[in-house]
Each structure stands twice: as structure tokens, then as C-alpha cells.
């Protein structure tokens, strides 16, 4: 047994520790399970699922940038039905805590997906992606529209008793306004942040490096922005926050907890070190022992300002 109580609670969801693997950076767990013990991770968030399968965007989908990367995967996913049939069994088997991320092009689709998936016992919570910058019909529109985010929160809450986390877009002027709407419509937490809109061009061909023209910027480059967004929410709205953005090391993760996160997600880092979740967990545990923190949740929002 660890000397530190690593458990955290978000709404009615209890996690064995605050380390989550971020949507779109672990697939459905199969491949990363070769490198890391998923049963020891707080939980994994699936690639965004939509009602029907999506092939995703044509290549090129990613490009490296200074301390970051751009992606426009286009929500390539197997769809809800196939997910239930072929992916859930594996996730059950490896004994991983499962949070299902949903992306959709309409409020109805969000509701429909949630309704279908909520009966799956192994799904412990939903993360609603209102902020994917790469899907034209939906995503961005919702993410920038306070009313839409409120409606999605309220409507998905109606069809499930499991916790609903709303994953917020950072591409807005005041993210805390969105957190407030989520709170008032009954959402259990917000996940912050999704990627920043970015682009990069090939100077010789004058074409965008990413076929979709713009993509989502992730990685350490965005960490200061993500930390500021989490802090803004924490100072303005009493809703649990799941911190995301550029975490590579345990020090980064602790920074997110200090500025207000109850749990955090590891995204791009999985591509570089597919065991980073557990490495980070170990680092945090040692930090807690060293600084006499007996309950990891005591770190949340301990900023001194």
C-alpha cells in the first residue's frame, strides 16, 4: 500500500489516482497496454466516439512544432456500436477505469451516444468533447457558444446517471464563463483544455502542412496557457477541474493540481513515453511523501496568490 492516499473523487466518480490518459492519445487502450499497466492508471479516456464510424481526415494529419504538435485527425473513430462490441471487452479485461469521450455534430447526437453507452457497466463517466477544433459541422461552434454548451450538459445529464465532464475549448476569451454554465446545468466537472487552433505552412509549396489547413496544438508549448485556463476556472467557479495540456513530467502534473485540477490527463506525452502515466504517478507519490502530503487531493488548488 502506498503511504499516500492517491484516491480522488470527481462527482460520484472515484478514481484510484488522478492520472488519466487523454482522449485521442490512447486509442481504445489496446496498443498502449503493451507499454503500461492500464489497471494502475486512474483511468483512460477513449478517443472521441461518434454515433457512426468516421474515417478521419486525409493525410497529412500531424506535424511537429516547437515543443508541440498540430493534429487534425478528424475524429477518426470506430463509432459507438463497434466500440461496444470490440473495444469494451479488452478494456474490461485489463481492468481499466473507463471514461468515454463523445463528440457529435448535434445536441441530439450527443444525447443519443450517451444513451446508448450509459448501459455499459464498465463505462464510469462521460467526457463530452464540445471543443474539437477539427470537425467542421460541429465542434468549434458548440465550444464557443455558451448556450450550446449549457444545452449539451443539461440534455446529456438527463439520459445518464453517470458523471458528465465537459471538455472545454481554450479558444475562447473567458473559459470560466463556460465552466459556470456547465456547473449550473448540472455537469460534474470540466476538462480543460483541448488543443489550441494552430497552423503551419510549407514555404516551398505554400500549402498547409496539415491537409485540414488548421489543426489542434498540443504538447508542452501550450502548458502555460492550459495552466492559466485552469487557474481562471478555479478562481471563478467551484466546479471540479480535470487539467490537461502539455504534461510531460510529474512536476508538470503537480503544477496543474496546484492551480486547481482535481485530476489531470496525459496526452501528447503518451506518444513519446507510453509509460509516462505511471512514471508521473510515481513522481507525484514521492513528492507527496517528501512534502508530507498524506492525501493527494489536498494538493488541489493550493496556489498561494
Amino acid at each position, binding site marked *: 500500500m502506498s503511504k499516500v492516499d492517491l484516491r480522488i473523487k470527481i462527482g460520484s466518480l472515484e478514481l484510484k489516482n488522478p492520472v488519466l490518459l487523454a482522449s*485521442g*492519445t*490512447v*486509442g481504445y487502450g*489496446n*496498443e*498502449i497496454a*503493451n*507499454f503500461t499497466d492500464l489497471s494502475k492508471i486512474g483511468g483512460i479516456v477513449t*478517443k472521441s466516439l461518434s454515433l457512426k464510424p468516421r*474515417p*478521419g481526415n*486525409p*493525410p*497529412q*494529419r*500531424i*506535424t*511537429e512544432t516547437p*515543443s*508541440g*504538435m498540430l*493534429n487534425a*485527425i478528424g475524429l*477518426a473513430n470506430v463509432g459507438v456500436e463497434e466500440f461496444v462490441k470490440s473495444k469494451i471487452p479488452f478494456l474490461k479485461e485489463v481492468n481499466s477505469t473507463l471514461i468515454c469521450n463523445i463528440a457529435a455534430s448535434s445536441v441530439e447526437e450527443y444525447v443519443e451516444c450517451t444513451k446508448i453507452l450509459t448501459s455499459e457497466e464498465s463505462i464510469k463517466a462521460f467526457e463530452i468533447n464540445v471543443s474539437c477544433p477539427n470537425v467542421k459541422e460541429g465542434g468549434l461552434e458548440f465550444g464557443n457558444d455558451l448556450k450550446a454548451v449549457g444545452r449539451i450538459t443539461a440534455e446529456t445529464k438527463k439520459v445518464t446517471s453517470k458523471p458528465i465532464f465537459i471538455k472545454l475549448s481554450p479558444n475562447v476569451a473567458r473559459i470560466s464563463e463556460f465552466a459556470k454554465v456547465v456547473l449550473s446545468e448540472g455537469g460534474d466537472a470540466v476538462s480543460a483544455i483541448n488543443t489550441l487552433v494552430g497552423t503551419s505552412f510549407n514555404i516551398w509549396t505554400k500549402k498547409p502542412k496539415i491537409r485540414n489547413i488548421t489543426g489542434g496544438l498540443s*504538447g*508542452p508549448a501550450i502548458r502555460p496557457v492550459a495552466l492559466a485556463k485552469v487557474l481562471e476556472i478555479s478562481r471563478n467557479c467551484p466546479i471540479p477541474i480535470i487539467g490537461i495540456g502539455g504534461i*510531460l513530467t510529474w512536476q508538470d502534473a503537480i503544477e496543474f493540481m496546484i492551480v486547481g485540477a482535481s485530476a489531470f490527463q496525459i496526452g*501528447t506525452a*503518451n*506518444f*513519446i*513515453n*507510453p*509509460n509516462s502515466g505511471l512514471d508521473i504517478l510515481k513522481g507525484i507519490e514521492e513528492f507527496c511523501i517528501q512534502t508530507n502530503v498524506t492525501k493527494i487531493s489536498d494538493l488541489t488548488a493550493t496556489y498561494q496568490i
Partner: protein
Amino acid sequence: MLIEKSKFISKTTITKNTYLIKVLSPSIARTAKPGQFCNIKVSENSFPLLRRPFSICDVDGEFIYFMFDIHGEGTRLLRDKNEGDELDIIGPLGIGFNLQWDYDTAIIIAGGLGSAPFPFLTKNIPANMEIHSFVGGRTKENVIDYKMKNVSVATDDGSNGFYGNVVEFFKSRIDEFAAKKIKVFACGPNPMLKALQNFCNEKNINCQLSVETVMACGFGICQGCPIEKYNGDGYLLVCKDGPVFDSMAVKL
């Protein structure tokens, strides 16, 4: 498929801008197959952020060889490693060359640095097979025939061997193989592979193509490396379903 901290053993120069490095990577070496690749962390800090994918050039006991030329900062850092440095390597990754099938003659076609996976492949082609290697380069300095067998050379500028590209060269000599059952193994720039694919598919020649795309993870979790299916119905992942594909499987 594992993460192995590997010792950098040595570096040699193949051509002016092309390097061959040797690393001690027993666990990866044990299971590596020709055509697979590794994803290498070229620095000990977070610059560059992502790993860099390289074909497994050769395996010799517990040692693995990689061949590369200087492209950008990542390959420069790799070149500047010293004996004893530690490299963090994920591998072996992907699906390599399919050596099965009904053939008696292996045709290897390499363009430029496309020669990288062939020392290891050459070693693994059953002894009873004939091997013909067609190696092409822009000019004679770009022709890399390291550890390849029965080599014929083509250069775009005619400075060595056939005057023209390597696919044209192969086509011009196809009649020599009329009596053989051939299987083609190819690696090189996309336009070359495309030309070859067209030819082989048309002539019904069994052909394996090793392709490159930008990659982040290298093992199937980022979806960053799609290649269109031959029938246009969605995508395959180069890192997981490839990097070697049957010429009937993908659209280049």
C-alpha cells in the same frame, strides 16, 4: 514491441551525408523482422519533442543498425551521439516484409535511402532464392548498396549504371525474369513507389512496398499516419498496418 534503453556503440559513414549507427538493443534485436522500424528518442531532453522513426537496417546478434541521412535537427542530434550514450528506442514496430508466397526470385528495388531496410531483408531471404537488387540514386554519390546482393545501379544523371530512374531500369529488364516467379520488395521516395506500384499491379507482379509518413507515436495510438486503402474505403495506419504494404493494399 518494447521500450529499450540502448547503448550507442559506433557510427560509420556510408556516403557523404549518410550514416550507419550500431546500437546494443538485445531485446528488440531478438524479435525484429525485416521491414520493421524503431521509433527513437534522439535526445535526453524534450527537444525535439517527438521520436524519429527509422527502419531496422540490419541486426547482428544483440546489435541493431540504423542508416540515415541528415534531414533536420533530429537526425543531426542522432549523428552527434557518442560511444556509450544511451538511446531510448521503441521497437520493433509495424509489419515488415512478407517473405511468404510463391516465388523463386526476390527483386529488391531501392531508391536513395530506401536501401535502409534491405541489408536485413537480404540476410533473411531464404538461401534457395535468387536475389536481384536494383539500386537507384540521383547521382552516383546517392547510390547506397550497403550489404545488398547482386546489385544493378541506376542514376538519374547517368553518372553510374543505367541512365534514368530505378523503376525505369527495372522495367527495362523485366524480360530477364520472364521465366522466374518474382516477388518485388521496394522502398524509396513516394513517386518511385507509385510508378512501381502501377507497373506491378498492371503486370500482376507480387510487390511489397515500404512507405513513409510523418509519425507521432509509431504504434497506433495517435492516428497520425494514415494511408488510403487501395479501394478508397478509409485508411490504414502506416505505423501499425505497415510500413510495408502489398501493392494492392494502399493508394500512394
